């Protein structure tokens, strides 16, 4: 049980998030999958910082990841609401305006 276990767990969580983003067609759940992926990167950063604890660089980076994730989510949900007003659905397969 070492730092490697944390890194393996983080990559599994990243895989879960990216599988959800690729397979689901519900825009809300795709946004949640993005949050899963960002969280797994935070685990990675904190584990590496614990392995080399001379400074706080990893934790500072994770702090900024959390802040940027919050900003990204706010914009994503605003786009989702605007999309829902136009299409009356959250299915991303229906977003075909720029496809043809």
């Amino acid at each position, binding site marked *: 049980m070492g730092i490697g276990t944390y890194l393996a767990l983080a990559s599994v969580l990243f895989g879960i998030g990216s599988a959800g983003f690729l397979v689901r067609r519900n825009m809300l759940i795709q946004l949640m999958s993005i949050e899963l992926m960002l969280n797994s990167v935070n685990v990675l950063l904190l*584990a590496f910082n614990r392995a080399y604890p001379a400074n706080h660089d990893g934790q500072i980076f994770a702090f900024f990841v959390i802040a940027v994730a919050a900003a990204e989510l706010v914009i994503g949900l605003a786009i989702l609401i605007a999309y829902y007003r136009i299409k009356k659905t959250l299915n991303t397969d229906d977003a075909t305006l720029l496809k043809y």
Partner: protein
Amino acid sequence: MTLPGATLFVVTAIFAMAGGLFTIWARRPLRAAMGLLVHIISLAAMFLTLDAQLMGVLQLLVYAGAVVVLFVFVIMLIGPAAEVGPIEGRVAPRAVSIAIVVTLALALSTTLARFDAPWVEVPENFGTVEGLGAAIYQQAAAPFEIISITLLVAIIGAIAVARSRTE
């Protein structure tokens, strides 16, 4: 790693994976949001085993306190249409993407699991409010201020994108 720390890690790892899987499996978005909540809370507890106390608290405050609540607000705003019907047709691309993701995750995790660093003693104040706060203000003061501008731009952008145009 001490025995209580290892136990906490195993328990939180199981809950984090179960919550993540529930998030991407759930039919209803509200249940997916609850899965996300379980995932976030268990990760916050896991951060304690990495001597990142302030990050654990911030994880709870920002993700469980703000992100999940925002998701639930939007689900309530949109109502029944938030539920998207079952996947129709075109299963092959999804199967291929699942296969690629599983392969990549397996390759990454088996490789990274071999990374071995000793559990060195952490210096005093590592990861506490005092230590991390001093590190942020001494090494990353300018990015810290820029983050506030980023959040302000995000607020203005959200209002501009989502406001209803009543003509």
